[in-house]
């Protein structure tokens, strides 16, 4: 039975709404941001094509150069600290849950709970917990006689960034545990049986069998952590404001981007500089995501 011709074209209506939303409000803005980075700006008006000038100014001209480098450095620290604080801890916990133990589901559920909160709630909640005079942490430290440990965690440039990274670890570690568990559970029993026949035990078993065979999930989590380190914004915004206080000690690229776009940083040229910064972040994050998707696909094939 042949359908009348006009019915045939109606089939494209399945695609149309998604395409309109996706192109109109995601792809067009992203391409515009890309284009904007190659133009000079006078306030909200696009002026003239200046090639890579915005990028060059961001890298070489004071004070942009200093702000950019400092913020980039903090993003790198963010990632480097999250690897042990979040990933290694989560891997250890995943190993424990994967071993012979009761209440696996309970632990999974409990570790996952923080992830249900909004980042803004987490930020505000911990700014109360970490308050120097009335916060729970310092009160508890004083109560158990560790008076000298009580300090303004978020108020001092030396501790503020690390404190925020630990809060971020608290928020995210349960999710990492779940991803690692998926990886660990996909290792077949036979591999372990075979290794045991070869008298491999404890640490050898872990380093030679478990870690290499769960490498795909380790890679994925490392890349996701890299991405989230370079996207981090809300948590720092909630705890330290738009300038990443105290004294810019917690400033990161996304905050600098926000200041360029929505406050007075960068003056009349701000949109050009901000767009250039957006493009830099976009390229970094897109590359990392592409790599992680490659690993994810490979993992799906391997097991």
């Amino acid at each position: 039975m042949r359908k009348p011709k006009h019915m045939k074209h109606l089939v494209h209506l399945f695609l149309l709404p998604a395409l309109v939303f996706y192109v109109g409000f995601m792809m067009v803005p992203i391409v515009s941001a890309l284009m904007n980075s190659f133009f000079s700006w006078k306030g909200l008006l696009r002026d003239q094509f200046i090639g890579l000038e915005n990028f060059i100014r961001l890298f070489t001209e004071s004070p942009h150069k200093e702000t950019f480098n400092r913020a980039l450095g903090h993003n790198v620290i963010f990632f480097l600290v999250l690897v042990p604080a979040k990933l290694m801890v989560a891997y250890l916990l995943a190993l424990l849950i994967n071993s012979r133990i009761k209440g696996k589901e309970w632990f999974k559920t409990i570790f996952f709970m923080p992830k249900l909160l909004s980042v803004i709630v987490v930020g505000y909640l911990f700014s109360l917990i970490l308050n120097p005079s009335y916060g729970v942490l310092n009160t508890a430290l004083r109560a158990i006689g560790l008076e000298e440990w009580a300090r303004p965690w978020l108020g001092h440039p030396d501790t503020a960034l690390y404190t925020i990274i630990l809060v971020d670890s608290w928020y995210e570690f349960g999710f990492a545990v779940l991803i690692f568990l998926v990886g660990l559970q996909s290792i077949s029993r036979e591999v372990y049986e075979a290794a045991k026949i070869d008298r491999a035990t404890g640490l050898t078993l872990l380093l030679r069998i478990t870690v290499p065979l769960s490498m795909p999930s380790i890679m994925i989590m490392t890349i996701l952590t890299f991405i989230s380190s370079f996207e981090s914004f809300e948590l720092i915004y909630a705890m330290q404001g738009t300038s990443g206080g105290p004294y810019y000690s917690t400033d990161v690229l996304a905050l600098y981007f926000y200041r360029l776009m929505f406050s007075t940083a960068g003056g009349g040229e701000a949109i050009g500089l901000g767009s250039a910064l957006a493009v830099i972040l976009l390229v970094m994050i897109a590359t990392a995501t592409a790599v992680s998707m490659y690993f994810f696909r490979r993992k799906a094939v391997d097991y």
Partner: protein
Amino acid sequence: MAHRLQQLTKYVLLLLFSFISLYPIFLMFLSSFKTSQEITRSPLGMPHSISLDNFIEVWHKVQFSDYLLNSVLVSVFSLLIILLVSSMAAFYLSRYNFRWNGALLFFFMLGLMLPMKLAISPLYMQLLKLGLLDSLAGLVVVYVAGHISFAVFLFYGFFGTLPRDLDQSARIDGCNDFQVYYRIILPLMRPAIATVAITDLIKVWNDFFYPLVLIKSTGKGTIMYGMLRLFGEYDTEWNLLFSGLTLASLPMIIAFLFASRQFIEGLTAGAVK
């Protein structure tokens, strides 16, 4: 004996991290029942009486009911539109063989790699031109656009597991294309719909960035936007702050207690992104 010690160490570690995980949340709940004085004098102690005064006060002081309603509206509409348009697009991509379908799929997948927040300034201008700035509809449009990629990706994968014979036989029985989608495919995709719905619900409900940038008038804020105002205006009244945070988080926590497995599956499936 060594084995016992090993088991004991495992449980101690797991319980320690369970405590770390839950205590801040527990503290948030507990403190919402305390008076401001109780919180500052004995932050670790229990409340002297269980009263809902703080919640009632927050509810009235910062128009909490407005924020709650806005959050519900934005979440429900975003979710319905995402599910509808993405499942239709995925149906189109997996059930028809147009020669551009491969390229289209790749085009949709690009969105998984591109963080939309970095395009906020052109997006802002665009919503301004369309008169969607500072409106709930504007937020819905942004959330739909931002979540289509993931939903299409998941639905497309799910359709791959449904046999094509199914729609062939339905066609023979006289169903047209829309009836195949609506009567045959849609009812079968419930698990995939649940996964997408839960993942997107938690992301939309908890989002703070877009209301921060796109909403100007307090009457149009979502709950997370309300937190910004609460902390700006009542920063010394800790009892109100804690109970505000609790109220904002309660809906997702209650939903989680009812469907923890779906939540966990949904968000780990989201890990591809």
